[in-house]
């Protein structure tokens, strides 16, 4: 199984699906101390749904943070 987080592929050899929470631990050092928001395959996933929303093979997660803007 492969998932993509911010365009980067992450192979997962054993699982068939994992929660968004579990997927984020692949990417974050201290997720609880960061400011970010998540979309799965282009759809917004609210923080309250990280534990119950499942990520499957081929899915794509976007993890976005504040930046400067005009």
């Amino acid at each position: 199984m492969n998932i993509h987080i911010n365009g980067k592929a992450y192979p997962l050899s054993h699982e068939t699906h994992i929660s968004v929470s579990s997927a984020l631990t692949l990417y974050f050092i201290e997720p609880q101390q960061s400011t970010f928001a998540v979309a799965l395959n282009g759809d917004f996933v609210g923080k309250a749904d990280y534990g119950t929303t499942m990520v499957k093979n081929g899915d794509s997660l976007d993890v976005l943070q504040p930046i400067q803007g005009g």
Partner: protein
Amino acid sequence: MSLNIYGQNLASRLLIGSALYPSPQVMKEAILASGSQVVTLSLKRQNPAAKSGQQIWHYLQEIVKQTDGHLLPNTAGCKTAKEAVTLAHMSREIFKTDWLKLEVIGDDYNLQPDPIELLHAAEQLIKDGFKVLPYCTDDLVLCQRLYDLGCEVIMPWASPIGTGKGLMNPYNLETIRLRLPDATLILDAGIGKPSDACLAMEMGYDGVLLNSAVALADNPVLMAKAFGLALQAGEQGYVAGIMQQRQTAHPSTPTLDTPFWHQS
């Protein structure tokens, strides 16, 4: 007089961007010097472990606290209504505001907004409870449609983003003001110099949103002050009532009792 954005009264009529400054410190000083109480920002893919996003976020939070101001997240980079709607929801979760600078780009060359996707996105976002500030072209009918959908604030461009070309089509902008007298109109994008902002205010616009003109100045802090003054001058000029242009010259010095050499 104050600027009203969805019921919020703001002392300054300037909305300012947070990008392109030489450093975060200069950004902060320039925004504070401008007097603006609305700062735009965005969201981008970043690994939170890199921490850079957190630093900027802390700076912007400090600025908002010091100015008793508001954040205005944008949807920069979106090309479809769906992308903009998703990004809007992500922004609302992070920034805890319903305000949204809605930006849906239709052309990569001049970064011109896509009017059709913009309308679709605005319609959905209003249903979702957002207070939408759409960035759009200076097309009267598009502005009217956005207003009819429920956008109380409309933000037509002066010229393409980052060009500094100023008001490309003053006639269009004046017509929008004339035809939408009750809308809050903010001129957004393409402002290059303080006189551009002053001109918009003299037309009766309610405010100006800019970024590059300050951030790319040799002295961003001084330029921020200059824009603050330009907006005040333009607004007072509009309120004072500008004289009608005339086709022919009229002497301003009284002609009665002119010196002898003019007497026949």
